[in-house]
């Protein structure tokens, strides 16, 4: 029943609208479902590519592949353990599966299946996890803030955290070409398109310098690279010269490049959409320590806590992942 227009408009509150929340910022260029379309293009060339979903095809951009190649898409229902087991079975008979679900379910729930069915036999199964880190306001049930920490210990697993649609589009064929298992943190829906402005090619296992700078070195991964680039541009106005090193592959980690860049005497700021426990910051720190190199590291990432539910922009501000929060942190630390 309609109520008469309220005389006092309610204070505008951001709402969670979590499952469709976009990580794109106002006015940013985006590309729709880059993973789904990249998988389709790959499937045209490779008849061995198959797709699986655990009742989340629509929410992992897998529906693009499902609709184009229904005979090669296998719906497993809301059963992540069976999906990863089945992906292993498909790989065992010579196919190249991409299995998508949310990151929390692939990692927390189906870990044993990813580990023993896929990683131990070294199968070419590509697990694609949507909603990595803090990319939904649904709260801890859906926020995979520790997926990198969980998976880094798994022998033989390649872990990729792409920055934008360009990165995803280039990563998909590289993942299929890589003989072993992979886990990719998926940005889905309307995904920012940024890296086409830079001289960038995705290379599995390799970090890429996106811009140079004398004062600060941002070492970033995943969606935080896009934020790092924005922050670096804006900090120019304050005469702070920031370099950005994008690390799309978390494992194997490109320690050589990271150590070489971090040893140049700049303030090192790591940026990751992940808890500071066991992710990028610790990978950088251990790389430097093992190389007997030191640098001052300011780690930007999520706290060691179960995060709040709420609207994504609010949460990114609160937990320090927004461009404004990054700039503020850099100014404070310099």
């Amino acid at each position, binding site marked *: 029943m309609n109520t008469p227009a309220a005389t006092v408009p309610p204070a505008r509150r951001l709402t969670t609208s979590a499952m469709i929340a976009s990580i794109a910022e106002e006015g940013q260029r985006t590309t729709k479902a880059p993973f789904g379309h990249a998988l389709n293009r790959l499937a045209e060339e490779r008849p061995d590519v198959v797709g699986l979903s655990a009742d989340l095809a629509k929410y992992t951009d897998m529906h693009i592949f499902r609709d184009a190649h229904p005979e090669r898409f*296998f719906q*497993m229902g809301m059963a992540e*353990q069976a999906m990863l*087991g*089945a992906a292993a*079975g498909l790989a*065992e008979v*010579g*196919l190249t599966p991409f299995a998508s679900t949310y990151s929390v379910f692939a990692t927390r729930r189906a870990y044993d*299946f990813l580990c023993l069915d896929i990683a131990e036999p070294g199968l070419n199964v590509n697990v694609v996890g949507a909603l990595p880190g803090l990319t939904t306001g649904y709260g801890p049930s859906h926020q995979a803030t520790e997926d990198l920490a969980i998976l880094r210990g798994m022998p033989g697993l390649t872990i990729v955290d792409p920055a934008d649609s360009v990165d995803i589009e280039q990563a998909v064929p590289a993942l299929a070409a890589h003989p072993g298992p992979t886990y990719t943190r998926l940005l889905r829906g309307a995904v920012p398109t940024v890296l086409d402005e830079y001289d960038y090619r995705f290379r599995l296992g390799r970090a890429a310098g996106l811009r140079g700078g004398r004062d600060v070195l941002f070492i970033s991964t995943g969606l935080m690279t896009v934020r790092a680039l924005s922050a670096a541009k804006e900090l120019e106005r304050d005469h702070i010269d920031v370099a950005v090193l994008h690390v799309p592959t978390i494992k194997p980690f490109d320690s050589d490049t990271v150590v070489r860049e971090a040893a140049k005497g700049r303030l090192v700021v790591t940026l990751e959409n992940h808890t500071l426990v066991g992710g990028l910051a610790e990978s950088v720190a251990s790389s430097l320590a093992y190389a007997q190199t030191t640098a001052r590291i300011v780690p930007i990432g999520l706290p060691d806590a179960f995060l709040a539910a709420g609207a994504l922009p609010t949460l990114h501000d609160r937990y320090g992942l927004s461009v404004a929060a990054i700039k503020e942190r850099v100014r404070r630390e310099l």
Partner: protein
Amino acid sequence: MTSTPSTVLGAAPPAQEHTTRQERIRALRDSAYRIRMHALNMGEVQGQGYIGQALGVADVLAVVYKDVLDHRPDEPDWPERDRLLLSIGHYAIALYAALAEAGVLDTEELATYGSDDSRLPMSGMATYTPGMEISGGSLGHGLGIATGMALGLRYRGSDARVYNLLSDGELDEGSTWEAALACAHHRLDNVTAIVDVNALQADGPTAGVLRTEPVTAKWEAFGWHAIRVDGNDVDALVTAFDSLREHRGSPSVLICDTKVGRGVPMLETREKAHFMRVEEHEWQIAREQLTQNHEAGRADGPDGRSDATEGKGPAA
């Protein structure tokens, strides 16, 4: 509880076929005897182990490897092979025995069982052993992998079939039922689950750990074509597998009631039977009992009549 296979059992087969079937059953019983003997010999290497399960499942494995699977012993990776996935990695001792019986492994290699640098680790590993399709020590994995293999084989137009040997204890694992749903949903009639119901798991009798019965009704409710047999009755196993191969439109499950320690009376009655310790002097006694038992069975006649006296019916 035992449902009747859909093939016609009542009609007397023609005389020649009768002879052939007699020979077939006799050969399979001999094969099961050798699998048991191999298992005892391997068990002696370690002094303990999952001997009871190996003796219990030997008849099933004899029928599977000598009568059911389309495979090539000297080409274990032949792409068109039927696959048997051993979910229950701790039954590896039984599978090694069966692989030796099938000609995939050399019998002499069985003596390395569970030793350093052996290809035969105590828990089955696909990367170690020819003919071992999966590493199945963590339970509840086999049927999920079978689902993917079956989907993939069907997609590729292969007629190969996927068998998954799992245990009744494995029915505790939710992932088994996830996969059971998926197999039925996708109408994977190239999948056959074989459930070894020995009614015993690590913490004690299955009925006390986590009740799984009624097993047949559960599979049927999940959309599977289910047959339940005495898993130590070779004749019944042959009939059941023959019937299952004809079934179309849904996945099949063969529920096999087996007896832990079967064929060695001394071990059949042992109380701590899940992970069995056998004293040094007992191995020879066990082998003698096994041989006596087998010869007594042969004396009863190879035509299947002996099952009436040999089998005690479903163990559960």
